[in-house]
Protein backbone atom coordinates (compact mmCIF):
# COMPACT_ATOMS: atom_id res chain seq x y z
CA UNK A 1 0.00 0.00 0.00
CA UNK A 2 1.43 3.35 -0.95
CA UNK A 3 1.15 6.16 1.53
CA UNK A 4 0.77 9.74 0.34
CA UNK A 5 2.34 12.03 2.90
CA UNK A 6 0.06 14.96 2.01
CA UNK A 7 -3.02 12.86 2.83
CA UNK A 8 -1.85 12.08 6.36
CA UNK A 9 -3.40 13.71 9.40
CA UNK A 10 -0.80 13.99 12.17
CA UNK A 11 -3.53 14.95 14.63
CA UNK A 12 -5.45 11.69 14.16
CA UNK A 13 -3.42 9.67 16.69
CA UNK A 14 -3.96 12.37 19.31
CA UNK A 15 -7.68 12.29 18.62
CA UNK A 16 -7.74 8.51 19.23
CA UNK A 17 -5.48 8.81 22.28
CA UNK A 18 -7.81 11.38 23.85
CA UNK A 19 -10.91 9.23 23.27
CA UNK A 20 -11.82 6.94 26.23
CA UNK A 21 -10.10 3.56 25.67
CA UNK A 22 -7.53 4.91 23.19
CA UNK A 23 -5.07 6.32 25.75
CA UNK A 24 -2.25 3.80 25.19
CA UNK A 25 -2.16 3.63 21.39
CA UNK A 26 1.23 5.33 21.07
CA UNK A 27 2.94 2.59 23.08
CA UNK A 28 2.63 0.18 20.14
CA UNK A 29 5.99 -1.02 18.75
CA UNK A 30 4.42 -3.18 16.01
CA UNK A 31 5.38 -6.64 17.27
CA UNK A 32 2.14 -8.14 15.87
CA UNK A 33 1.39 -10.29 18.91
CA UNK A 34 -2.17 -8.93 18.64
CA UNK A 35 -2.69 -10.15 15.09
CA UNK A 36 -1.04 -13.49 15.85
CA UNK A 37 -3.44 -13.99 18.78
CA UNK A 38 -6.59 -12.74 17.06
CA UNK A 39 -9.36 -15.29 16.30
CA UNK A 40 -10.76 -13.02 13.56
CA UNK A 41 -7.38 -12.68 11.82
CA UNK A 42 -7.19 -16.47 11.99
CA UNK A 43 -10.35 -16.66 9.86
CA UNK A 44 -9.91 -13.62 7.60
CA UNK A 45 -6.31 -12.70 6.79
CA UNK A 46 -7.39 -9.20 5.68
CA UNK A 47 -8.06 -8.44 9.32
CA UNK A 48 -4.93 -7.13 10.98
CA UNK A 49 -5.15 -5.07 14.20
CA UNK A 50 -1.39 -4.37 14.12
CA UNK A 51 -1.82 -2.72 10.74
CA UNK A 52 -4.86 -0.71 11.85
CA UNK A 53 -2.80 0.69 14.72
CA UNK A 54 0.14 1.50 12.43
CA UNK A 55 -2.15 3.26 9.97
CA UNK A 56 -3.67 5.25 12.83
CA UNK A 57 -0.24 6.29 14.11
CA UNK A 58 0.74 7.34 10.59
CA UNK A 59 -2.37 9.49 10.36
CA UNK A 60 -4.26 7.59 7.66
CA UNK A 61 -7.47 8.90 9.12
CA UNK A 62 -9.99 8.38 6.34
CA UNK A 63 -8.70 4.94 5.40
CA UNK A 64 -8.89 3.73 9.01
CA UNK A 65 -12.23 5.31 9.86
CA UNK A 66 -14.02 4.11 6.74
CA UNK A 67 -12.50 0.61 6.87
CA UNK A 68 -14.63 -2.42 7.57
CA UNK A 69 -11.95 -3.92 9.82
CA UNK A 70 -12.62 -1.73 12.84
CA UNK A 71 -16.13 -3.24 12.99
CA UNK A 72 -14.89 -6.86 12.83
CA UNK A 73 -13.33 -6.96 16.32
CA UNK A 74 -15.23 -9.30 18.66
CA UNK A 75 -13.80 -7.54 21.77
CA UNK A 76 -12.51 -10.89 23.05
CA UNK A 77 -9.51 -9.22 24.75
CA UNK A 78 -6.97 -11.81 23.57
CA UNK A 79 -4.80 -9.05 22.03
CA UNK A 80 -5.12 -6.87 25.12
CA UNK A 81 -4.07 -9.74 27.36
CA UNK A 82 -1.00 -10.68 25.34
CA UNK A 83 0.24 -7.23 24.27
CA UNK A 84 3.74 -6.70 25.78
CA UNK A 85 3.29 -2.92 25.61
CA UNK A 86 -0.11 -2.72 27.34
CA UNK A 87 -1.63 -0.93 24.34
CA UNK A 88 -5.05 -2.33 25.30
CA UNK A 89 -5.90 -3.00 21.66
CA UNK A 90 -9.54 -4.04 22.28
CA UNK A 91 -10.15 -0.68 23.95
CA UNK A 92 -8.16 1.19 21.27
CA UNK A 93 -10.37 -0.39 18.58
CA UNK A 94 -13.39 0.81 20.57
CA UNK A 95 -11.96 4.34 20.68
CA UNK A 96 -11.38 4.28 16.91
CA UNK A 97 -14.99 3.14 16.42
CA UNK A 98 -16.21 6.01 18.60
CA UNK A 99 -14.22 8.49 16.47
CA UNK A 100 -15.60 6.88 13.30
CA UNK A 101 -19.19 7.25 14.47
CA UNK A 102 -18.67 10.93 15.27
CA UNK A 103 -17.05 11.58 11.89
CA UNK A 104 -19.88 9.74 10.13
CA UNK A 105 -22.46 11.86 11.98
CA UNK A 106 -20.69 14.94 10.67
CA UNK A 107 -20.86 13.49 7.16
CA UNK A 108 -17.07 13.31 6.82
CA UNK A 109 -16.92 9.56 6.19
CA UNK A 110 -19.20 6.69 5.15
CA UNK A 111 -19.52 3.59 7.34
CA UNK A 112 -20.49 0.49 5.42
CA UNK A 113 -20.77 -1.80 8.45
CA UNK A 114 -24.20 -2.26 10.06
CA UNK A 115 -22.64 -2.60 13.51
CA UNK A 116 -23.01 1.03 14.63
CA UNK A 117 -26.71 0.78 13.72
CA UNK A 118 -27.01 -2.34 15.85
CA UNK A 119 -25.14 -0.80 18.77
CA UNK A 120 -27.32 2.32 18.66
CA UNK A 121 -30.49 0.23 18.59
CA UNK A 122 -29.19 -1.77 21.57
CA UNK A 123 -28.39 1.35 23.58
CA UNK A 124 -31.81 2.83 22.73
CA UNK A 125 -33.48 -0.11 24.50
CA UNK A 126 -31.43 0.54 27.64
CA UNK A 127 -32.23 4.24 27.48
CA UNK A 128 -35.96 3.54 27.17
CA UNK A 129 -36.39 0.56 29.50
CA UNK A 130 -33.22 0.32 31.58
CA UNK A 131 -32.72 -3.19 30.20
CA UNK A 132 -32.16 -4.84 26.88
CA UNK A 133 -35.40 -5.68 25.07
CA UNK A 134 -34.66 -8.16 22.33
CA UNK A 135 -37.79 -7.75 20.24
CA UNK A 136 -37.58 -3.95 20.32
CA UNK A 137 -33.89 -4.14 19.49
CA UNK A 138 -34.40 -6.49 16.55
CA UNK A 139 -37.33 -4.46 15.19
CA UNK A 140 -35.39 -1.19 15.35
CA UNK A 141 -32.21 -2.69 13.90
CA UNK A 142 -33.93 -4.52 11.04
CA UNK A 143 -36.03 -1.50 10.10
CA UNK A 144 -32.92 0.66 9.89
CA UNK A 145 -30.87 -1.89 7.95
CA UNK A 146 -33.66 -3.03 5.63
CA UNK A 147 -35.12 0.46 5.26
CA UNK A 148 -38.76 0.06 6.16
CA UNK A 149 -41.24 -2.04 8.10
CA UNK A 150 -42.31 -4.56 5.46
CA UNK A 151 -38.86 -5.54 4.26
CA UNK A 152 -37.68 -5.63 7.90
CA UNK A 153 -40.45 -8.05 8.83
CA UNK A 154 -39.64 -10.25 5.84
CA UNK A 155 -35.93 -10.32 6.72
CA UNK A 156 -36.71 -11.03 10.37
CA UNK A 157 -39.00 -13.88 9.41
CA UNK A 158 -36.25 -15.36 7.26
CA UNK A 159 -33.58 -15.00 9.96
CA UNK A 160 -35.54 -15.84 13.08
CA UNK A 161 -38.44 -18.20 12.39
CA UNK A 162 -36.42 -21.36 13.05
CA UNK A 163 -34.54 -20.05 16.09
CA UNK A 164 -37.69 -18.46 17.49
CA UNK A 165 -39.71 -21.67 17.17
CA UNK A 166 -36.86 -23.65 18.70
CA UNK A 167 -36.68 -21.36 21.74
CA UNK A 168 -40.46 -21.11 22.06
CA UNK A 169 -40.94 -24.90 21.99
CA UNK A 170 -38.39 -25.34 24.78
CA UNK A 171 -40.02 -22.67 26.91
CA UNK A 172 -37.07 -20.29 26.53
CA UNK A 173 -39.26 -17.54 25.11
CA UNK A 174 -42.11 -17.11 27.57
CA UNK A 175 -45.12 -15.10 26.40
CA UNK A 176 -44.03 -12.34 28.79
CA UNK A 177 -40.84 -11.79 26.75
CA UNK A 178 -42.96 -10.16 24.03
CA UNK A 179 -43.11 -7.12 26.29
CA UNK A 180 -40.09 -5.17 27.57
CA UNK A 181 -38.96 -5.56 31.18
CA UNK A 182 -38.96 -1.95 32.26
CA UNK A 183 -37.17 -0.89 35.40
CA UNK A 184 -38.87 1.48 37.86
CA UNK A 185 -36.42 4.36 37.96
CA UNK A 186 -35.83 4.85 34.23
CA UNK A 187 -35.25 8.55 34.97
CA UNK A 188 -31.90 7.65 36.56
CA UNK A 189 -30.80 5.76 33.46
CA UNK A 190 -32.10 8.47 31.13
CA UNK A 191 -29.98 10.95 33.05
CA UNK A 192 -26.87 8.88 32.31
CA UNK A 193 -27.65 8.96 28.60
CA UNK A 194 -28.30 12.68 28.74
CA UNK A 195 -24.95 13.31 30.44
CA UNK A 196 -22.82 10.99 28.33
CA UNK A 197 -24.76 10.70 25.09
CA UNK A 198 -25.06 7.47 23.15
Amino acid sequence: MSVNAWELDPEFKYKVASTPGGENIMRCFQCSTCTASCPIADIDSNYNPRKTIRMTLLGMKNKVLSSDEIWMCAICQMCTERCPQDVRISDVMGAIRQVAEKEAEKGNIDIKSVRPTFEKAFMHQIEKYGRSYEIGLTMEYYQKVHKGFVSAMMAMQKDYTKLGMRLFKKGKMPVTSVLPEKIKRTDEVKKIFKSIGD
Partner: protein
Amino acid sequence: MSTSVTKLAYYPGCAGATHAVDQEMSTKAVFEQLGIELIEMEDWNCCGAAEAEDPNMVYALNARNLVIAEKEGLNVATPCSICFYNLARTDKALKEDENLRKKMRDMDPSLDYKGTINAKHTLDILVNDVGLDEIGKKIKKKVAVKVAPYYGCYLERPSEIGFDNPERPELMDKIVELAGGTPIPFRQMRIRCCGGPLMMTRGDLAFEMSKRVLEAAKKEGADCIITACPLCHMMLDAKQPDIEEFFNITIGMPVLYFSQLLGLALGVEPKKLALNKNIVSTKEIEEKVI
Protein backbone atom coordinates in the same frame (compact mmCIF):
# COMPACT_ATOMS: atom_id res chain seq x y z
CA MET B 1 -13.86 -18.34 54.14
CA SER B 2 -16.67 -20.76 53.31
CA THR B 3 -18.84 -19.87 56.27
CA SER B 4 -18.83 -16.17 55.40
CA VAL B 5 -20.80 -16.53 52.16
CA THR B 6 -24.44 -16.78 53.17
CA LYS B 7 -26.16 -14.01 51.23
CA LEU B 8 -25.41 -12.29 47.93
CA ALA B 9 -26.92 -9.56 45.77
CA TYR B 10 -27.91 -11.41 42.62
CA TYR B 11 -27.53 -9.72 39.25
CA PRO B 12 -29.21 -11.96 36.63
CA GLY B 13 -28.41 -9.78 33.61
CA CYS B 14 -30.79 -9.29 30.71
CA ALA B 15 -30.21 -12.80 29.31
CA GLY B 16 -30.86 -14.43 32.67
CA ALA B 17 -34.09 -12.47 32.95
CA THR B 18 -35.23 -13.74 29.51
CA HIS B 19 -33.99 -16.60 27.31
CA ALA B 20 -31.20 -17.90 29.57
CA VAL B 21 -33.81 -19.39 31.89
CA ASP B 22 -31.74 -22.60 32.03
CA GLN B 23 -28.79 -20.73 33.49
CA GLU B 24 -31.05 -18.80 35.83
CA MET B 25 -32.80 -21.90 37.20
CA SER B 26 -29.64 -24.00 37.57
CA THR B 27 -27.70 -21.18 39.25
CA LYS B 28 -30.48 -20.68 41.79
CA ALA B 29 -30.76 -24.43 42.40
CA VAL B 30 -27.02 -24.82 43.02
CA PHE B 31 -26.83 -21.92 45.47
CA GLU B 32 -29.94 -23.20 47.25
CA GLN B 33 -28.29 -26.60 47.70
CA LEU B 34 -25.27 -24.88 49.21
CA GLY B 35 -27.40 -22.83 51.58
CA ILE B 36 -26.48 -19.49 50.06
CA GLU B 37 -29.24 -16.96 49.58
CA LEU B 38 -29.34 -15.07 46.28
CA ILE B 39 -31.35 -11.90 46.63
CA GLU B 40 -32.15 -10.36 43.24
CA MET B 41 -31.01 -6.75 43.14
CA GLU B 42 -33.87 -4.28 43.23
CA ASP B 43 -34.39 -2.36 39.95
CA TRP B 44 -31.03 -3.36 38.38
CA ASN B 45 -30.25 -2.07 34.87
CA CYS B 46 -28.46 -3.53 31.84
CA CYS B 47 -24.64 -3.51 32.14
CA GLY B 48 -24.21 -2.17 28.59
CA ALA B 49 -23.08 -5.60 27.32
CA ALA B 50 -20.58 -5.42 24.44
CA GLU B 51 -22.51 -2.61 22.77
CA ALA B 52 -21.63 0.34 25.00
CA GLU B 53 -18.44 1.55 23.28
CA ASP B 54 -17.66 4.43 25.63
CA PRO B 55 -16.08 3.16 28.88
CA ASN B 56 -17.71 6.07 30.72
CA MET B 57 -21.13 4.75 29.70
CA VAL B 58 -20.18 1.33 31.13
CA TYR B 59 -18.96 2.95 34.36
CA ALA B 60 -22.12 5.01 34.79
CA LEU B 61 -24.56 2.16 34.05
CA ASN B 62 -22.74 -0.14 36.45
CA ALA B 63 -22.14 2.46 39.15
CA ARG B 64 -25.92 2.53 39.46
CA ASN B 65 -26.01 -1.27 39.82
CA LEU B 66 -23.19 -1.32 42.36
CA VAL B 67 -24.88 1.38 44.44
CA ILE B 68 -28.07 -0.71 44.62
CA ALA B 69 -26.12 -3.68 46.05
CA GLU B 70 -23.99 -1.44 48.28
CA LYS B 71 -27.13 -0.07 49.95
CA GLU B 72 -27.97 -3.63 51.01
CA GLY B 73 -24.38 -4.20 52.13
CA LEU B 74 -24.07 -7.26 49.88
CA ASN B 75 -21.47 -8.40 47.35
CA VAL B 76 -22.73 -8.83 43.80
CA ALA B 77 -22.95 -12.26 42.13
CA THR B 78 -23.65 -12.63 38.41
CA PRO B 79 -23.70 -15.78 36.26
CA CYS B 80 -22.95 -13.88 33.00
CA SER B 81 -19.37 -13.33 31.77
CA ILE B 82 -20.11 -10.01 30.06
CA CYS B 83 -22.09 -8.61 33.01
CA PHE B 84 -19.23 -9.73 35.26
CA TYR B 85 -16.65 -7.93 33.12
CA ASN B 86 -18.61 -4.69 33.09
CA LEU B 87 -19.52 -4.77 36.80
CA ALA B 88 -15.99 -5.74 37.89
CA ARG B 89 -14.15 -3.22 35.72
CA THR B 90 -16.45 -0.48 36.96
CA ASP B 91 -15.85 -1.55 40.56
CA LYS B 92 -12.08 -1.46 39.97
CA ALA B 93 -12.06 1.85 38.08
CA LEU B 94 -14.19 3.61 40.70
CA LYS B 95 -12.19 2.24 43.63
CA GLU B 96 -8.93 3.44 42.04
CA ASP B 97 -9.98 6.80 40.66
CA GLU B 98 -11.41 9.47 42.93
CA ASN B 99 -11.96 11.82 39.97
CA LEU B 100 -14.09 9.22 38.23
CA ARG B 101 -16.09 8.70 41.43
CA LYS B 102 -16.70 12.44 41.61
CA LYS B 103 -17.71 12.53 37.95
CA MET B 104 -20.31 9.83 38.62
CA ARG B 105 -21.53 11.48 41.82
CA ASP B 106 -21.94 14.79 40.01
CA MET B 107 -23.92 13.11 37.23
CA ASP B 108 -26.52 11.75 39.64
CA PRO B 109 -26.71 10.77 43.34
CA SER B 110 -27.81 7.27 42.26
CA LEU B 111 -24.26 6.75 40.92
CA ASP B 112 -22.47 7.64 44.16
CA TYR B 113 -20.56 4.40 44.70
CA LYS B 114 -18.44 4.27 47.88
CA GLY B 115 -16.60 1.06 46.97
CA THR B 116 -17.49 -0.98 50.06
CA ILE B 117 -18.49 -4.16 48.19
CA ASN B 118 -17.24 -6.24 45.26
CA ALA B 119 -18.73 -7.86 42.16
CA LYS B 120 -17.92 -11.44 41.20
CA HIS B 121 -18.88 -14.16 38.76
CA THR B 122 -20.73 -17.11 40.30
CA LEU B 123 -17.93 -19.46 39.17
CA ASP B 124 -15.36 -17.44 41.14
CA ILE B 125 -17.63 -17.37 44.20
CA LEU B 126 -18.25 -21.11 44.12
CA VAL B 127 -14.64 -22.23 43.64
CA ASN B 128 -12.72 -19.54 45.50
CA ASP B 129 -15.09 -18.28 48.20
CA VAL B 130 -17.36 -21.21 49.01
CA GLY B 131 -14.54 -23.63 48.19
CA LEU B 132 -14.29 -27.03 46.57
CA ASP B 133 -14.05 -28.82 49.93
CA GLU B 134 -17.28 -27.31 51.13
CA ILE B 135 -19.11 -28.08 47.87
CA GLY B 136 -17.54 -31.56 47.86
CA LYS B 137 -19.31 -32.39 51.14
CA LYS B 138 -22.65 -31.96 49.38
CA ILE B 139 -21.91 -33.96 46.24
CA LYS B 140 -24.39 -36.84 46.00
CA LYS B 141 -23.89 -38.18 42.49
CA LYS B 142 -21.20 -38.87 39.95
CA VAL B 143 -21.58 -37.34 36.50
CA ALA B 144 -19.31 -39.73 34.62
CA VAL B 145 -18.84 -37.81 31.38
CA LYS B 146 -16.00 -36.33 29.33
CA VAL B 147 -16.38 -32.58 29.35
CA ALA B 148 -14.91 -29.80 27.20
CA PRO B 149 -14.59 -26.85 29.60
CA TYR B 150 -15.21 -23.76 27.48
CA TYR B 151 -14.20 -20.48 29.17
CA GLY B 152 -14.47 -18.06 26.26
CA CYS B 153 -13.63 -14.48 27.24
CA TYR B 154 -13.74 -12.23 30.31
CA LEU B 155 -13.59 -14.90 33.06
CA GLU B 156 -9.82 -14.98 32.64
CA ARG B 157 -8.91 -11.91 30.61
CA PRO B 158 -8.01 -9.15 30.71
CA SER B 159 -6.17 -10.54 33.71
CA GLU B 160 -6.47 -7.48 35.93
CA ILE B 161 -10.25 -8.07 35.89
CA GLY B 162 -10.44 -11.84 35.33
CA PHE B 163 -10.14 -14.39 38.13
CA ASP B 164 -8.69 -17.41 36.35
CA ASN B 165 -5.40 -18.17 34.58
CA PRO B 166 -5.54 -16.11 31.35
CA GLU B 167 -3.77 -18.69 29.19
CA ARG B 168 -4.99 -21.87 30.86
CA PRO B 169 -8.05 -21.28 33.00
CA GLU B 170 -8.94 -24.19 35.25
CA LEU B 171 -11.81 -23.38 37.60
CA MET B 172 -14.44 -25.16 35.48
CA ASP B 173 -12.09 -28.16 35.15
CA LYS B 174 -12.16 -28.36 38.94
CA ILE B 175 -15.96 -28.29 38.93
CA VAL B 176 -15.99 -31.13 36.37
CA GLU B 177 -13.62 -33.22 38.50
CA LEU B 178 -15.65 -32.51 41.62
CA ALA B 179 -18.75 -33.72 39.77
CA GLY B 180 -16.98 -36.97 38.90
CA GLY B 181 -16.37 -36.17 35.25
CA THR B 182 -13.21 -35.91 33.17
CA PRO B 183 -12.18 -32.59 31.62
CA ILE B 184 -10.61 -33.00 28.16
CA PRO B 185 -7.49 -30.88 27.37
CA PHE B 186 -9.33 -28.61 24.88
CA ARG B 187 -6.04 -26.70 24.54
CA GLN B 188 -6.34 -23.25 22.94
CA MET B 189 -10.06 -23.66 22.24
CA ARG B 190 -11.03 -23.22 25.87
CA ILE B 191 -10.13 -19.53 25.70
CA ARG B 192 -11.18 -18.81 22.08
CA CYS B 193 -14.05 -16.37 21.54
CA CYS B 194 -17.40 -17.88 20.38
CA GLY B 195 -18.01 -14.86 18.15
CA GLY B 196 -21.22 -13.97 20.00
CA PRO B 197 -20.77 -10.17 19.91
CA LEU B 198 -20.60 -10.36 16.09
CA MET B 199 -23.72 -12.50 15.64
CA MET B 200 -26.05 -9.70 14.59
CA THR B 201 -23.59 -7.83 12.37
CA ARG B 202 -21.13 -10.43 11.03
CA GLY B 203 -23.01 -13.68 11.47
CA ASP B 204 -20.66 -15.44 9.03
CA LEU B 205 -17.65 -14.81 11.29
CA ALA B 206 -19.60 -15.68 14.44
CA PHE B 207 -20.76 -18.99 12.95
CA GLU B 208 -17.23 -19.89 11.87
CA MET B 209 -15.88 -19.14 15.36
CA SER B 210 -18.54 -21.21 17.12
CA LYS B 211 -18.16 -24.03 14.62
CA ARG B 212 -14.46 -24.28 15.47
CA VAL B 213 -15.23 -24.59 19.19
CA LEU B 214 -17.91 -27.23 18.62
CA GLU B 215 -15.80 -29.27 16.19
CA ALA B 216 -12.74 -29.21 18.46
CA ALA B 217 -14.83 -30.55 21.35
CA LYS B 218 -16.22 -33.29 19.13
CA LYS B 219 -12.81 -34.21 17.74
CA GLU B 220 -11.37 -34.53 21.24
CA GLY B 221 -14.17 -36.92 22.18
CA ALA B 222 -16.15 -34.75 24.59
CA ASP B 223 -19.64 -35.89 25.64
CA CYS B 224 -20.59 -32.28 26.23
CA ILE B 225 -19.30 -28.71 26.49
CA ILE B 226 -19.80 -26.60 29.59
CA THR B 227 -19.91 -22.82 29.61
CA ALA B 228 -20.39 -19.99 32.10
CA CYS B 229 -21.89 -17.36 29.78
CA PRO B 230 -25.37 -17.00 28.24
CA LEU B 231 -23.98 -15.57 25.00
CA CYS B 232 -21.60 -18.51 24.52
CA HIS B 233 -24.52 -20.81 25.33
CA MET B 234 -26.78 -19.09 22.82
CA MET B 235 -24.15 -19.50 20.10
CA LEU B 236 -23.12 -23.07 20.89
CA ASP B 237 -26.47 -24.56 21.94
CA ALA B 238 -29.44 -22.57 20.60
CA LYS B 239 -27.75 -21.79 17.30
CA GLN B 240 -26.06 -25.16 16.88
CA PRO B 241 -28.78 -26.38 14.44
CA ASP B 242 -28.29 -23.16 12.41
CA ILE B 243 -24.52 -23.72 12.36
CA GLU B 244 -25.06 -27.31 11.21
CA GLU B 245 -27.34 -26.10 8.44
CA PHE B 246 -25.05 -23.22 7.40
CA PHE B 247 -22.00 -25.47 6.97
CA ASN B 248 -23.95 -28.60 6.07
CA ILE B 249 -22.36 -30.60 8.89
CA THR B 250 -23.59 -32.69 11.83
CA ILE B 251 -22.37 -31.90 15.33
CA GLY B 252 -24.96 -32.91 17.95
CA MET B 253 -22.91 -31.67 20.90
CA PRO B 254 -24.82 -31.03 24.15
CA VAL B 255 -23.83 -27.71 25.77
CA LEU B 256 -24.54 -27.32 29.47
CA TYR B 257 -24.05 -24.43 31.84
CA PHE B 258 -21.47 -25.42 34.43
CA SER B 259 -24.22 -24.83 37.00
CA GLN B 260 -26.35 -27.52 35.31
CA LEU B 261 -23.51 -30.04 35.53
CA LEU B 262 -22.74 -29.15 39.14
CA GLY B 263 -26.46 -29.27 39.95
CA LEU B 264 -26.65 -32.88 38.67
CA ALA B 265 -23.74 -33.83 40.96
CA LEU B 266 -25.48 -32.12 43.88
CA GLY B 267 -28.44 -34.40 43.24
CA VAL B 268 -30.82 -31.77 41.86
CA GLU B 269 -33.62 -33.01 39.57
CA PRO B 270 -32.73 -32.42 35.88
CA LYS B 271 -36.00 -30.55 35.40
CA LYS B 272 -35.16 -28.14 38.22
CA LEU B 273 -31.89 -27.46 36.37
CA ALA B 274 -33.92 -26.76 33.21
CA LEU B 275 -32.01 -29.43 31.27
CA ASN B 276 -35.24 -30.03 29.33
CA LYS B 277 -34.87 -26.49 27.98
CA ASN B 278 -31.46 -27.02 26.37
CA ILE B 279 -31.80 -27.08 22.58
CA VAL B 280 -29.39 -29.98 21.94
CA SER B 281 -30.70 -32.93 23.94
CA THR B 282 -28.87 -33.60 27.22
CA LYS B 283 -30.46 -37.02 27.68
CA GLU B 284 -27.21 -38.94 27.20
CA ILE B 285 -25.56 -36.81 29.86
CA GLU B 286 -28.42 -37.37 32.30
CA GLU B 287 -28.15 -41.12 31.70
CA LYS B 288 -24.53 -41.06 32.84
CA VAL B 289 -25.39 -39.65 36.25
CA ILE B 290 -24.77 -42.44 38.76
